[in-house]
């Protein structure tokens, strides 16, 4: 939709939504939220931006093609699950350590994997459909 109002607002909302998304991701272990919810909000951010500014502009705001993110997300999740191997514990056993005073555990890293995977997969769906929609000749009824 090519409207000035939407374009201007979406620029602002995009960052806001991304911020909210990261907020929901990182807080998820203690408060409502988590990787999946965070990813959905991030997808919403990109969907909004693509809607207002077009697909090409939205693609520029993403360092990787979305589908590649799926692979990386799964890889992060897998690695977090494998850490336990080195401690001689079963698959996916939570391993916690302190990082700069913040308690970080493999379950949290796993949640980041969830975030990346869901984000990549859904965004690839939205972008894919936007791309085909872009080519549909627009016509007034």
């Amino acid at each position: 939709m090519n409207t000035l109002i939407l374009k201007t607002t979406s620029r602002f909302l995009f960052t806001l939504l991304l911020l909210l998304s990261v907020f929901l991701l990182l807080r998820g272990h203690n408060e409502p939220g988590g990787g999946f919810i965070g990813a959905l909000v991030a997808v919403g951010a990109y969907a909004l931006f693509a809607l207002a500014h077009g697909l090409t502009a939205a693609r520029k705001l993403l360092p990787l093609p979305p589908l590649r993110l799926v692979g990386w997300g799964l890889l992060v999740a897998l690695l977090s699950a494998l850490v336990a191997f080195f401690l001689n514990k079963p698959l996916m056993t939570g391993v916690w350590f302190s990082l700069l005073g913040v308690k970080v555990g493999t379950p949290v890293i796993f949640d980041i994997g969830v975030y990346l995977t869901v984000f990549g997969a859904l965004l690839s769906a939205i972008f894919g459909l936007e791309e085909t929609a872009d080519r549909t000749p627009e016509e007034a009824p």
Partner: protein
Amino acid sequence: MRAFVYNVVLTVFWMLVTESFTLSNFLVGFALCFLILLLARPLFDAPSRRYFTLAWKLPRFGALMLWEIVLSSLRVAQAVLSPRLSIKPGFIAYPLTVKSDLEITLLANLITLTPGTLSLDVSTDRKVLYVHGMFVDDPQAVIQSTHDSLEKAVLEVTR
């Protein structure tokens, strides 16, 4: 903008010192740091100082907005709840004086939230804002009052 960056950096420092990374602590820290920066205002150059005036103007703008929303809601309530619908709806073209994207958007959104008017679209050459009004017995009066209150307020914060 530089002042804002300073403010944020100081706030992060505050959070590290207090060892609390909550939103509330951020806000407290932000407010504190702002006050400190306010004291140090003369150290900043002219464009940066706009940060401090904006810090004053923005709340005023917000308050105006809230007030307008209340007014408009009451107006709607009156219209909705009166036994006979006493509305005079219509689409009117509102000539814009504001120019930038941000200004136009702010104005349009403000118009939607204020009594009896709802922004529909901006013309492609950005000269006219088409508005749907609930009570447009006198389109020119609507235009004039909008121009006087809302557009002025917008210009105040953006320029």
